[in-house]
């Protein structure tokens, strides 16, 4: 008797999809699918739009990470039209994307992931959510909310709106930061750094509690995709890096992305499966997002984060970490880097410099390609402009595409562990923090 296990919908997820695991009558896992059941065709309906308006449309791809979806197409148009932006604009954009990284990672850690660890993976589904966590751990809840609030308010201040920002424009930023605003946020940095340290402590406690799970469940070797700035962790500017199964690092200029990245369209998902082209599909399946970035970089960009990365690599005993559950840990290391960068950029009065937009802009018929790192993985925009600066064509590689094949691969791996090897039985799980 063939058995199908269906999870519909996947919850605590940005996006729409279900899981489907097929088990044959021999008890073996035959198939594991991640069915993404919706797509909205931004690739198509951006055709005919003003190139400079594309960044005001594509934000709507993702409400959690609209900022990378605002900045990346702006960079792509600048690449096509050969526009250089003033330094204050560059700093503002970096501040904006790091403020987003901070709030998004915290949202992920506290609202999407933590309920599993704090309430326990087998708890009543009615309780396994952030609302319950806030009720049961009000101090931690309030701290988490204050951190997300700081990040989102800073995004709103620079971006105009935290969800679907509008302040970047081809050539720079529409407005510098006001000095009093800069001071207001700068003052909050020491408290935010303290909160971040406490969050890392909670994270490390979870790591210890769930060490058996981290070390034994879902350890799945894949390729990794990330952006690095000459080997250093950077989420605004850099080039494509692939790490292969042996840990070899291969760099690609963004303009050569088609040499590195292939897109397999599966029959069972509207989100396509990206893979490393030279290795073919499915052998070249890679993963993106924080753990992938951490695997790609030689070092983090800031001192505290770099220390945290070294500690993680020492604890797991390798620089190439395939442990799926270590994603949460990697996310916290990036959270540390984000608040360090936010602090240092807020300390720079250049972000208040009115020289934040160039006047030297002329549309031309050309292609532009740009990348950034969205919280959940590399984001690539390839835009074709006509001589009037109208978008003729658009190709988009978004975090979801980069992750889906890797998620399916991990799912298959874990399904076999659970249904074929009964791996859950011997697993050591801690008492939940919240009972």
């Amino acid at each position, binding site marked *: 008797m063939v058995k199908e296990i269906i999870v519909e919908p996947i*919850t605590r997820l940005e996006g729409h999809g279900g899981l489907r695991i097929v088990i044959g009558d021999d008890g073996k896992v035959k198939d594991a699918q991640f069915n993404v059941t919706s797509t909205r065709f931004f690739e198509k309906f951006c055709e005919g739009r003003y190139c400079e308006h594309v960044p005001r449309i594509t934000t*709507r*791809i993702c409400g959690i990470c609209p900022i990378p979806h605002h900045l990346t197409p702006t960079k792509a148009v600048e690449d096509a039209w050969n526009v250089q932006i003033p330094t204050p604009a560059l700093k503002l954009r970096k501040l904006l994307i790091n403020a987003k990284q901070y709030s998004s990672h915290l949202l992920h850690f506290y609202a999407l992931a933590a309920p599993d660890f704090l309430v326990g993976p087998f708890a009543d589904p009615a309780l396994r959510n952030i609302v319950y966590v806030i009720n049961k751990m009000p101090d931690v809840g309030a701290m988490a909310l204050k951190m997300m609030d700081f990040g989102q308010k800073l995004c709103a201040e620079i971006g105009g709106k935290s969800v679907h920002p509008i302040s970047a424009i081809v050539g720079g930023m529409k407005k510098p930061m006001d000095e009093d605003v800069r001071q207001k946020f700068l003052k909050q940095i020491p408290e935010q750094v303290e909160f971040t340290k406490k969050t890392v402590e909670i994270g490390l406690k979870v790591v210890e509690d769930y060490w058996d799970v981290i070390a034994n469940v879902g350890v799945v070797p894949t390729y990794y995709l990330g952006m690095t700035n000459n080997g250093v962790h950077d989420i605004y500017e850099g080039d494509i890096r692939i790490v292969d199964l042996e840990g070899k690092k291969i760099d690609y200029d963004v303009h050569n992305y088609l040499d590195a990245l292939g897109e*397999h369209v599966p*029959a*069972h998902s509207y989100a396509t499966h990206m893979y490393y082209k030279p290795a073919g599909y499915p052998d070249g399946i890679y993963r993106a997002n924080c753990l992938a970035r951490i695997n790609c970089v030689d070092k983090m960009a800031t001192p505290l984060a770099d220390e945290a990365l070294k500690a993680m690599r020492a604890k797991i005993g390798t620089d190439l970490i395939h442990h799926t559950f270590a994603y949460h840990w990697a996310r916290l290391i990036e959270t540390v880097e984000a608040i360090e960068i936010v602090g240092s950029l807020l300390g720079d009065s250049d972000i208040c410099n009115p020289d934040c937009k160039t006047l030297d802009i002329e549309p031309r018929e050309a292609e532009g390609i740009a990348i950034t790192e969205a919280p959940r993985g590399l984001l690539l925009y390839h835009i074709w402009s006509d001589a009037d*600066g109208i978008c003729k064509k658009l190709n988009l590689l978004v975090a979801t595409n980069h992750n889906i094949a890797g998620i399916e691969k991990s799912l298959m791996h874990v399904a076999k562990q659970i249904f074929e090897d009964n791996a859950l039985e011997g697993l050591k799980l801690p008492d939940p923090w919240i009972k």
Partner: protein
Amino acid sequence: MTVKVAFMQLSSCWGCHQSLLNAHLGLLQVLPALDIVYWPAVVDFKHDSLVAREDEEIVVGFIEGMIRTKEDLANTKLIRKKSKIIIAFGSCACYGNVPGLANQWPIDEVQMRKFMEVESATTKRIPDQHVPGFEDKVVNVDDVIKVDAFLAGCPPRTEQIVGVVQFLLGQKGFPMNEKSFCEDCVLKESGCLLDNGVLCYGPVTSIGCSLKCTNKGDPCVGCMGPAKNASDKAQKLLDMTKSLDYISSGNKKNLFEFLSLFLNVPLMAGFDLSGDIMMQIKKRGKPDTPLATIPSITTEIATNLLGFLAMHPEFHEISNVCQTCPRIIGKGTMTKVKRDYEGIPNQEDCFIEQGYICVGPITKAGCGGLCIKVNAPCTGCYGQTEWVIDQATRFYKTIKESFNVELSKEEFFIQVKDPIGTFNKFTLASNRDFNLGE
């Protein structure tokens, strides 16, 4: 007492949920009052648990997202069946939002680009296993089911969402005093404004304020919220609300203010209620909201006013984005249409009179002018103040009448190279008369 609510997520971006979560510490006040029975973004209840619920068991069903897939369509009908009140939550559910721009092409062509033609694709096919299939067009939620209230915005502002939730929970924060404003009013004995044809909401409003309005001779606009008991004058007010057709402009202003303050929905313009929502809350079973505990005459008055609002789209025009914009009109002149990348607009003067296209004049207010504050023109995410097929011509007429524009219609349309993306960016799917190839 908690209220059963559900969030249905159609094809969307999650931004409306993020905007709600952005209430952050404010959530601590709102969440404990909600019994959330379905919200995939945040809680773990699965689809089958929603199917298993009784019809109309849920008090408020929020629909977020647009109908792009066949699954979206089925889920729209499902949540309608399970809920007493349906709120279209955000501009996707209200108007189809930017993905509605795909309605310019046949669905086959749209799918071809994404699955077959993109430069990075290696294996090419249209997915067809365990995926729902697409609707030919992005379909407007309102075309498929009855929607009781529209909360527009991309995303709706956090304060608005919290306001709406508080409204549905029932006047949270209002004193709900026993007696009405009339009891203390200086005009009680003689000179009652209602007797002089002025809409004054004292009869249904809580006592307890400083009486500033009527002391000055102005009508009460309901800022204390509803009273537990309406005064004798309520009947007079009710009668007046039955024939609002020749309403004066002063009364219009009061009416609008009253609905925002009394219903505790901040920036009412972004929250369009169908006229009978108050009655529905009353009629449908025993909803767990204190709104049901206010006097029936009060409900009837509010229903009449909301009905008037729903029937008179021109009424909404008293609140377009321009009316919340601090920029100065009258200093410059549009002589050519500028693209957004050209130059740097100054932050004091109207965008239009600096040559930029800003669709504020034809866009509903409610956003608080957030884009304008960071020097970006409005692109219309709260939806249009008036429903006509040709928004481009309407825009041109409006700016020609109300702003300094020295540009003929012909010149204007030559210079605007993307009229659909400029004037129907968020609303193409709700434009039922839009046909392919136009």
